């Protein structure tokens, strides 16, 4: 995105007929901007949430049964390497121009990040703390929910932040099939050599990513007050 902005500025410098921003376009398209913004947010949240719902139990399983960690990572790694555009076109015959066609690749990309971070978070929990918890009479389930997950939370949320920010970027590609949120403006702008929507799309995408990141960071600080106790080392990846 940043590269395209730089390229754009270069092109714009030669084009003196068309200004970089036509403010009138923005005020004329406010409704459209809000609609695409909701769409963008919806696609992001849906894919990260579903991705997490799949990755989280798998990570818990992998932390219990070490042997399954490698095959899960392997499958998720393959999904991660499929180019997003190719993935969307592969799905077109099956799911058509629906939101599903967009959400499935987005989920696929979030899986590896979410799985790896959740597993790293659970693995990072001090063995002594777990042993003492079991020794005091916490059941396996209690050890997971009352000890391991709370202590893994900083690393799990770090994973959610990366997955969310990447998903917000990737959603723009879905404009190719008319389901792109802010990506729609970018595509329109590129097709018509009309810079205003393009810039609006890029800036709003970046802004959304930034806000989502800050929001999740805030959630993390709220849920893990103990990480700011003096002398505590906070694990982040």
């Amino acid at each position: 995105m940043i590269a395209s902005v730089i390229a754009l500025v270069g092109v714009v410098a030669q084009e003196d007929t068309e200004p970089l921003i036509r403010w009138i376009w923005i005020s004329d398209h406010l409704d459209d901007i809000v609609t695409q913004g909701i769409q963008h947010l919806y696609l992001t949240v849906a894919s990260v949430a579903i991705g997490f719902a799949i990755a989280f139990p798998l990570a818990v399983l992998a932390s219990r049964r070490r042997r399954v960690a490698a095959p899960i990572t392997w499958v998720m790694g393959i999904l991660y390497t499929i180019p997003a555009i190719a993935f969307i076109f592969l799905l077109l015959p099956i799911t058509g121009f629906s939101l599903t066609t967009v959400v499935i690749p987005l989920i696929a990309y979030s899986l590896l990040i979410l799985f790896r971070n959740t597993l790293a978070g659970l693995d990072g929990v001090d063995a002594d703390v777990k042993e003492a918890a079991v020794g005091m009479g916490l059941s396996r389930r209690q050890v997971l929910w009352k000890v391991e997950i709370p202590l893994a939370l900083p690393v799990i949320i770090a994973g959610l932040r990366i997955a969310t920010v990447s998903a917000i970027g990737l959603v723009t590609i879905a404009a190719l099939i008319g389901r792109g949120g802010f990506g729609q403006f970018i595509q329109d702008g590129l097709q018509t050599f009309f810079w205003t929507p393009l810039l609006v799309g890029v800036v709003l995408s970046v802004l959304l990513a930034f806000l989502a990141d800050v929001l999740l960071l805030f959630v993390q600080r709220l849920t893990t007050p103990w990480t700011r106790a003096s002398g505590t080392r906070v694990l982040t990846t």
Partner: protein
Amino acid sequence: MTAMISLQQIEKRYPGTAAPAVDGLSLDIAEGETVALVGPSGCGKTTTLKMINRLIEPTGGRLLIDGTDVLQRDPVDLRRGIGYVIQQTGLMPHRTIRQNMATVPKLLGWSDERTAPRIEELTEIFDLDPELLDRYPAELSGGQRQRVGVARALAADPPVMLMDEPFAAVDPIVRARLQDQFLDIQERLNKTIVFVTHDIDEAIKLSNRIAILNVGGKLEQYAPAEEILREPANDFVREFVGAERGLKRLALIKVGDIPLEDGPVVAPTASADEARAAIDAGGFDFVSVIADGELLGWVGRDMLAGKATVADSTPRPFTAYVTARDSLRQALDSIVTSRTGVAVVATEGQRYKGILTLERISQEIIS
């Protein structure tokens, strides 16, 4: 005395290993007793400890606590009734000290009205600053964390407590303080305690009986520290308890446990000649000055020169004296560091009791 904890031919065999980690160990631990499991690494002392609360599942034998078969019970339920302390404390970093201490009461379903006063009580017993209760473990010093670890284990007042190298992670000064505090608290609470240590001195200091284990959980000797030091069962034990057995034994015998010598004494009103006579009769080069049973100090021959009475020679106070509750080791220290070459024994209120000499102490060791 009935056994509170009874290990009967307990065995732990790990799959794929030739020799069992613990091979048929039997051990009875009486109610209110503190037993130390010691031995070289690989002797199975930690394995044995963890089999008692089934963190490690025994592969053979029987294990009774208070007469009931531990292996028939639900392990989670069992553990809630046994205090457990580990070296690194295992405090939950995301819970405040108060929440950490409330862990087992909460698992047992105690009401807040019952838990809160219990935590206050423990805070007092363990001499913790109440302000610490709302801090996180990372905000405490190592010694404080260790105390919280033990306090947490005692929160639901279990009759039995297991401790795995409880004081090994702190520096020697803090460790000595924690050990003293442990002894004080144990004297009051009278729990049945099994602890693992690699430090024979810690075992000697804290336990009523020491179980010395060899590789494979073979019990080499199970006896009070004093007996192990006096009569090591075999070469293994002799080597394990190490050098300075005599000195270590001295640390276990109290001054009050052995007969004292009267030692030379004079009143401050006595004449210099009388004092000189007492010095000669006593066979030392000093005489203790006593007024109505109260120890004032001592005078030497040279101090009496040209003086009419003992009081005129201004007796010097003893820089150190020992009480009946001190150990012979402390008495020995007093002997070798004092100018008089003996340890003077008095009560804490400075009432004179007698003296201890080097000969007297070494007699005690040889006998």
